[in-house]
């Protein structure tokens, strides 16, 4: 394994330490328990947004802490969900009295740890709700699996909800918005090469020189199928068409109900994309793929959307939700309404996403 790291067990902490000195004006880092938070938190009266998950997906989430996006991020070990004490401590640090929206990617570990965090927050008298992101169309059914994984839409949900929180949305409105963003986002990724987890030291999976993995998850989880190497255009076509042709997706999620003051099971339904839909197109690098290749993918994606009668009105292109050094990319298509569009355009000032300020 060749990486710019020291001891694998120090990687997360040392990387965060670098972020902390690099972006003193924007963020602070707390250790034991570990969380990254806005330098100016808490903001009285504003709902605080907290996300988190295993490390190794940088800049997500820590790089999105700041004005107009997250109030705090809880990084776990590499590819390992953070723990409830981190999430609670972060909530205590950033709560401005208007409650906490936890944005959670749908992985069994993240789910359970964040659920415990919500319970702990309530015990401490902090209002908190959890909204799940489960947008990975590579996972077909929700009955026989943990359900769709949370991937690219997470970044977009954090930006859009961050702007909304800034503009004074209350906890209930924010939860609704976040759920809506999730229900309108779809992603699919692919890998040209495996990532290598520092603590393990060897590639997570093996791909031959002429193989790629389609539908890969952001932890190197196996995808839909392993196929022979294809051209950039063909790969884009495969990813884009799977997303565009994705049919209704129905599943049950568990959310904390502020009204009922208990966990409730919610049945959610994603509707397929339709001609005329306005999209945010997000082409993401898995970490080891340079931006020039992403533009090549975007070019083809724009062509396909045009042919399909889908209108790309915004885009995001770059390494935003990565899988360590994995080579490959993912595409996320988020159907936008006027409200989401306005919130997407709103100012944001974080280490890794910045405009309008």
């Amino acid at each position, binding site marked *: 394994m060749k990486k710019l790291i020291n001891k694998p067990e120090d990687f997360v902490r040392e990387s965060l330490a670098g972020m902390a000195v690099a972006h003193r004006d924007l963020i602070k880092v707390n250790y034991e328990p570990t969380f990254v938070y806005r330098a100016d938190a808490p903001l009285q009266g504003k709902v605080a947004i907290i996300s988190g998950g295993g490390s190794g997906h940088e800049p997500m989430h820590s790089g999105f802490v700041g004005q107009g996006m997250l109030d705090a991020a809880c990084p*776990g070990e590499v590819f*390992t969900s953070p723990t*409830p*004490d981190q999430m609670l401590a972060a909530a205590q640090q950033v709560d401005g009295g208007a409650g906490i929206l936890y944005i959670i990617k749908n992985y*069994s570990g993240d789910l359970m740890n964040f659920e*415990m965090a919500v319970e702990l927050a309530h015990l401490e008298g902090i209002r908190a709700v959890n909204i799940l992101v489960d947008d990975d169309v590579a996972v077909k059914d929700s009955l026989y699996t943990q359900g769709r994984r949370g991937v690219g839409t997470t970044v977009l949900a954090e930006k859009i909800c961050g702007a909304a929180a800034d503009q004074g949305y209350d906890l209930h409105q924010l939860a609704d918005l976040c759920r809506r963003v999730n229900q309108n986002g779809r992603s699919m990724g692919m890998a040209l090469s495996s990532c290598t*987890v520092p603590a393990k030291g060897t590639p997570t999976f093996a791909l031959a020189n002429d193989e790629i993995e389609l539908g890969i998850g952001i*932890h190197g*989880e196996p995808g839909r199928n392993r196929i022979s190497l294809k051209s950039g255009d063909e790969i884009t076509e495969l990813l884009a068409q799977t997303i565009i042709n994705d049919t209704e997706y129905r599943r049950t999620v568990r959310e904390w109900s502020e009204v009922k003051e208990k966990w409730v099971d919610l049945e959610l339904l994603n509707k397929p994309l339709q001609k005329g839909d306005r999209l945010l197109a997000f082409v993401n690098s898995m970490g080891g793929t340079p931006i020039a290749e992403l533009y090549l993918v975007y070019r083809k994606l724009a062509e396909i959307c045009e042919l399909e009668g889908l209108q790309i009105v915004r885009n995001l292109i770059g390494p935003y939700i990565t899988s360590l050094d994995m080579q490959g990319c993912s595409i996320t298509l988020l159907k936008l309404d006027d409200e989401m569009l306005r919130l997407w355009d709103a100012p944001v000032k974080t280490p890794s996403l910045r405009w309008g300020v």
Partner: protein
Amino acid sequence: MVTQAQIIEWLQVYANVIDHHKEELTELDAAIGDADHGINMERGFKKIKTLIGTLKGQDISGILKTVSMTLISSIGGASGPLYGTWFLRASAIAADKEELTAEDLLYLLQAGLNGVLERGKAQLGDKTMVDVLSPSVAAYEQALSEGLDVVPALRIAVAAAEHGLQETIPMLAKKGRASYLGERSIGHQDPGGTSAYLMLRSLLEAVESYKD
């Protein structure tokens, strides 16, 4: 009877077992998960080891509570909240008890299992630690009903756990990361089931061998 000292011994034995099986657990997780189960468990139980000294001054319920909190705040992933919940529920059962009778231990194992079921929502046959915990609790209960005492009943429970663990191999995973593999999850032993089996085996070892 299971004494406070045996509980401490159990934690010590299990922590060492995890240390020795770290690689094996991680390899099992590499096959159908994300290659960190051994690393996760070791992170948690390394912490427990450093706490053994302070644990010695607490009663059983207090010990189990501390273990729960420690695991919850240091393991992360799926196994952190699951084992954390297991110990939390176990701790509640042991409240105000100096020692645990054979029956107390049954309630403890049941409570732990129920905690895991509530937290993780897995069902029997989903290829998770439930497939190890659940048959072992049933076997222990059956053994007690047949009049056996702690050690022989635990022996039967561990044997059932081992059998349950073997049975995870042909299963198709429906919970946790392994579920994304679909058919490809078949033929591999569940990592979390493996650590759960080791936990019960360590308990038996501690109770069997450690007399104070």
